């Protein structure tokens, strides 16, 4: 190998090493559970909820023509307890503006869901997720996760982690005004009890 070839090879190997180092350094910290949803910009899945206590069936498509906030949560999820009061306040504040908040209990027993609601309060419909069909349809990777669906039934944003009243209200304000909204990551999601 001539000295010139050797320099070219060493430089090429060095460049590849640097590129790989940058890729690994930037991607290793990324949690795939907090990735953006491929559902953004696409129609919301056609799921039907079995509402707790009433036993009524609520197809999400019945809420077409309204903005729908779909919150996946679980009674065993610690961040879900923290966000519950904000979701109650959100449902109350935006109820007159044709905004529906819907809770979907992920990987939960109905008794535990009712106990959670007894403890922290009721204010919007909560449905059980039979065989995780709603969670699979939305591509849920953990709880809490909140999806914003516009009046046309299109998913426009996803919030991974606990949602605050401020963030939810700001997102809804922009949707009502017809402005573009962005997904966000507010913290960790919990995958198992």
């Amino acid at each position: 190998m001539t000295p010139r070839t050797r320099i070219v090879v060493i430089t090429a190997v060095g460049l590849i090493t640097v590129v790989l180092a940058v890729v690994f350094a930037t991607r290793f910290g990324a949690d795939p559970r907090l990735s953006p949803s491929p559902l953004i910009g696409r129609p919301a899945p056609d799921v039907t909820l079995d509402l707790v206590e009433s036993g009524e069936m609520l197809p999400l498509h019945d809420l077409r023509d309204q903005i729908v906030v779909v919150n996946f949560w679980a009674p065993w999820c610690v961040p879900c307890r923290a966000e519950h009061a904000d979701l109650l306040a959100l449902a109350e504040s935006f109820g007159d503006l044709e905004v529906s908040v819907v809770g979907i209990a992920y990987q939960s027993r109905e008794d535990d869901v009712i106990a959670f609601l007894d403890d922290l309060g009721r204010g919007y419909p909560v449905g059980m997720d039979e065989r995780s069909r709603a969670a699979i349809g939305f591509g849920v990777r953990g709880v809490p996760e909140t999806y914003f669906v516009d009046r046309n039934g299109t998913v426009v944003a996803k919030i991974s982690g606990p949602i605050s009243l401020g963030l939810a209200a700001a997102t809804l304000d922009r949707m009502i005004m017809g402005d573009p909204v962005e997904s966000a990551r507010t913290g960790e999601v919990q995958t198992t009890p």
Partner: protein
Amino acid sequence: MFRAGRLRPLSDRIRTITALLVIAASLAITVVVLATGSSDSPDRVHALAERLKCPICTSESVADSPSQVARDLYELIEEQVADGWTDDEIVEFFIDTYGEQVLLDPKAGGAGAVLWIAPIAALAIGGVVIAGRHARNDREITDAEKERIAAELEKRP
């Protein structure tokens, strides 16, 4: 009748060719097994579940994970297969909901192509380099080089 005798040592060239053939045969077997393994599986549901990553796990497949979500996903795949969905339709359904990260093996197209092409490219480059070095080593020694070698040997005490 077999006669015991001294085996002649193999030349470097034969050893190299043999090694390359063994490597090429191993790669060919691996590629053939990977390419045909899933479609010939007696259990399509299990084969599909092995290709999909459990969404709440780090690197476990839907088939291997003991989580309830994985069991629900497995059950959905069973229903989709029973309803006549093709393998591609089922895989696309999960990519549409969870993204391409749901695949345990990255797709051959797009950004995933780099992961498939890079090892093959590295192997090809390595092969070219080795072949180049051998070609250089195997060439005839020129008269000028013979004279120089002879001169150098004469200098030795």
